[in-house]
């Protein structure tokens, strides 16, 4: 069974269908990448290099903006994207971040 799924052709992220260890190969828009950290089920990785300020697209729709340059294969989450509406409330120790 595959590890990652791109939900919509316009997306610049993919979703993990199960826990993906660091180094899992990913077919990305630009060819091949690997996950740069462990990625938990239903978390996202970059499908291409995303520049700071770029919109992050999932389901073909914007879900926020990048607050850092995000290389293809990197975990995309509360540490590097931000809502365009209201701030996200999360617990630093329990947000599913690999380096937490």
């Amino acid at each position: 069974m595959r590890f990652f799924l791109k939900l919509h052709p316009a997306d610049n992220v993919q979703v993990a269908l199960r826990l993906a260890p660091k180094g899992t190969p990913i077919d990305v828009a630009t060819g091949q990448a690997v996950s740069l950290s462990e990625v938990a089920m239903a978390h996202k990785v970059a499908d291409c290099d995303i520049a700071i300020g770029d919109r992050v697209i999932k389901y073909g729709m914007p879900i926020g903006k990048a607050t850092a340059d995000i290389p293809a294969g990197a975990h995309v989450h509360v540490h590097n994207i931000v809502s365009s509406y209201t701030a996200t409330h999360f617990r630093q120790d329990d947000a599913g971040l690999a380096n937490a």
Partner: protein
Amino acid sequence: MRETWQGYLRQDGRKGIRNVVAVVYLVECAHFVADEITRNFKGQDVHLIGFPGCFPNDYAQKMMEQLCTHPNVGAVLLVSLGCESFNRATLAEHIAASGRPVQTLVIQKSGGSAATIEQGCDFVRSALDQIDKVARVEMGVSDLIVGTICGGSDGTSGISGNPAAGRAFDQLVAAGAACIFEETGELIGCEHIMAERAVTPELGQELRQAVAKAAQYYSVLGYGSFAAGNATGGLSTIEEKSLGAYVKSGDAPISGIIKPGDVPPRGGLFLMDVIPDGEVRFGFPNISDNAEIVEMIASGAHMTLFITGRGSVVGSALSPVIKICANPDTYRALAADMDINAGSIIEGNASLDEVAQEILDAISATASGTPTASEALGHQEFILTYKSFEPIGPACLPTA
């Protein structure tokens, strides 16, 4: 999906799928006594609901009137302390006018806790006998009102449970049922695509405004409708959570906007605007998932589909909750609390359409009387708090 089953016919012509005696406390000070009465009937359809506040509130009054005359309710016992502001006489008259057995017990006039509990149990026993004789009537999908909410969402919710529920909704709407989705605070970012589905341009404008009101309300509060566990489960922003939540509305045209306690006037898909009107007061719109479920029931929902990723275990008083688990790991951890495993979609073992069919089968089984997982476990959560609403505008319910 079974086509017809036997429902309970109420005097106003509405049909129920359960036949419950509601025991209602009208202020927190009467909660214990009402709870003690209910506990004497464990395993029977005697459910505890109530309003904790001592100050009057039009919303709570309307909600209670609608809940106590819900088609799943056969009889009502009101338990008052005596000095609270809730207008118990108006509520009792409303219930009596619906043809339901109703009694009001005022603890301060009934001899205190023990005597009130004894009198309350006497009423419930006689009410159970009376509602046992309620006429049964053939009932079908077009008689149903079905709500949907999601709670404990994670990154799986928007790709398995919610889209499967959306496909089930499409079939229910096509069969003439009224379906309600809600939580405009979790539609932030979806307003433009949603407005395109409105049956009139004016309704589309109302849909946009309802979401704008939610965004404004939550920005004043300083929090979005987003819990820490959502982030643990892979959701990063309210827009992402919203898009996942939005798909549970399916693809049907949107027929109207209602507010809590408004019953859809016909079949179709309706958005419930749950965000209070006017200045921000009384705190968060819905402080937890059951507040949303209670509003669905007040708008006539015979049952509520509850899609969860992190794993909610709740049910509800009055109307059954069908729990659809989006996350396969959560399903394995909490299988006895779940009705449907939509996690099988994530694992590649079932299609969205197959799970949608399972949901439709669960709906007709539940309507026919089969207990859902939370009913079998005895769950009867209920919460009602303060809110204030203006009536819906004329563009909200276009005549088809």
